[in-house]
């Protein structure tokens, strides 16, 4: 199987500043796994991930980047507080995820393929509205946990925010204001210059390719990836 950085995964990983920050040396004490919420619920063990990264074996690295394992972490950073060697498994995970995406290996795992959802939703929110989360794109149907009050909020969005004193889509300062075009243009430039656009286009492209392979429209593929969950495989039970 061909993929970007083949044969150089370890080398590429170690360029990430989060590896420089997060990989000092592990003494296998287990406090990170002890406190980790993902380790409690998922078949996940941050200590083992750090050990694999430390071994610097190219084949093991490929397996790791293809796996669901690196996608279980919730990035709460509880591991960072406690590690007696000042490692940061949470940061190591972020570096692994980035490499998994850039190499394309993320498409080999169910949880990896979900990156299509977050890249599409969050990047479009940032570029279109200047916010990571924007109420008009937070729909009730796909977020039923928002609750009946959430449905009411969405149904009365403009009135409610006016009552609350927000400045929804308005000019000037205030909550949920319309971000000036100049700022949105600058965010786009930042995306272009720092590689976010490239990453985003790659992920959207990978998803489209996969959708075509599976004979699905982009929307159908989105919903598939959004909901598909082989929970028996993932859960610690």
């Amino acid at each position: 199987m061909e993929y970007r950085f083949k044969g150089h995964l370890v080398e590429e990983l170690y360029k990430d500043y989060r590896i420089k920050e997060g990989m000092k040396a592990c003494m296998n004490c287990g406090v990170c796994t002890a406190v980790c919420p993902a380790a409690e619920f998922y078949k996940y063990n941050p200590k083992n991930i750090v050990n694999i990264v430390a071994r610097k074996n190219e084949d093991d690295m490929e397996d790791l980047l293809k796996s669901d394992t690196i996608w279980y972490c919730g990035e709460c950073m509880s591991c960072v507080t406690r590690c007696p060697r000042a490692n940061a498994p949470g940061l190591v995970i972020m570096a692994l995820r980035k490499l998994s995406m850039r190499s394309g290996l993320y498409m080999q795992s169910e949880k990896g393929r979900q990156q299509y959802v977050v890249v599409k939703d969050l990047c479009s929110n940032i570029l279109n509205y200047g916010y990571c989360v924007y109420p008009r794109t937070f729909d009730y149907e796909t977020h039923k946990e928002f609750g009946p009050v959430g449905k009411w909020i969405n149904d009365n969005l403009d009135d409610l925010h006016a009552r609350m004193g927000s400045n929804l889509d308005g000019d000037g300062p205030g909550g949920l204001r319309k971000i000036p075009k100049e700022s949105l243009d600058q965010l786009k430039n930042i995306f272009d210059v720092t590689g976010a656009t490239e990453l985003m286009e790659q992920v959207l492209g990978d998803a489209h390719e996969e959708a075509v392979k599976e004979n699905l429209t982009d929307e159908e593929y989105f919903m598939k990836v959004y909901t598909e969950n082989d929970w028996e495989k993932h859960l610690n039970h």
Partner: protein
Amino acid sequence: MIIEGKQKIWADYQKDIPDDHYFYVRSCIRQAFWPGSEVTFLDITRNKLGKDFYENPYHTTCGGIAYHSDTIPQETAMTIIARQFALMHESGYENYVCSCITSFGCYTETLETWHEYPELEAKIRQYLWDSCKKEFAKPKYLAHASDIIYKFRFEIAKQMKFPLVNVKTGKPLKVVEHIGCHYSKMFPSKGFGGAEYPHVLVGMIEAWGGEVVDYPERRQCCGFGFRQYFVQANRGYSESNTHKKFESMEPYEPDMIITNCPGCPYFLDRWQYVIAEQTGKTYGKNGYGIPALTYEEVAGLVMGYDPWDLGLQMHQVAIEPLLEKMGIPYDPKKKYQGLNGKDLGQPMCPSCIKSV
């Protein structure tokens, strides 16, 4: 429990917060889900405490949620942050206050990483110039908005109308304090009280007459998990973590939860609704849940703001039992109204948890 042990730890982790002239940046989640909180925060600080809080309308998201969902590279997040710092500098400020906890974590991480690796800071300077033709200066002080309320908690107590006390029994309310993970877990010295016994919310509770509840899963993440929530298939992770916390705090019968991260109260509130619908169980008494409030909402309640101006109608868990415990008057008819009494209908009631 020996409280003196905790007090000594709090004394060790004090941080310098300046007195005035703050550059305020908003939170994507707080302004969307808890708009009343940011409005109240600015009203308290500007009008009740007389502070200068400046908001530059060109500021944007810090990108923190996207960064922690692994959708943008670290360099992108850092450059967006550098742009925010440039706006602060252009506006003539040096005290940076952010409303979101993930933001606070990202700003702190960025500054610390630049300190360790100056070549990365130089690279980001170049990226900012190439993309925006801007130059930045690092803030002299970086604080989270809850640090400001913490700093002025005694001034707020002086203007307090409704202390955190149960008016029927005269006893202090039992308050669970929930700190956002990105406040001090990565850099304990950057949070009041460090990472093990953070003091930023404890200080508020105690200044305002309440009693802090310690329970085994107190330090546990609420479970947001970024991609673990945004992708529906992963949401069980998020719910499970919140569920674990509620199971742990239940025997202590807390009256309310106070939070400083904008995401946490969303999860602590909404997952109670989901747990009730899935299992029939509620954690408050008589089919009610435990209200999970932002610290701005709590500050507003004690200072006598109208609950519906604070935005408490935007929570799923009913706030009314708490209002009654505190002796705060409220008009049930106005709960779901818009401006000038406009009728906006009402949300449906969930089947297994009370919402009024």
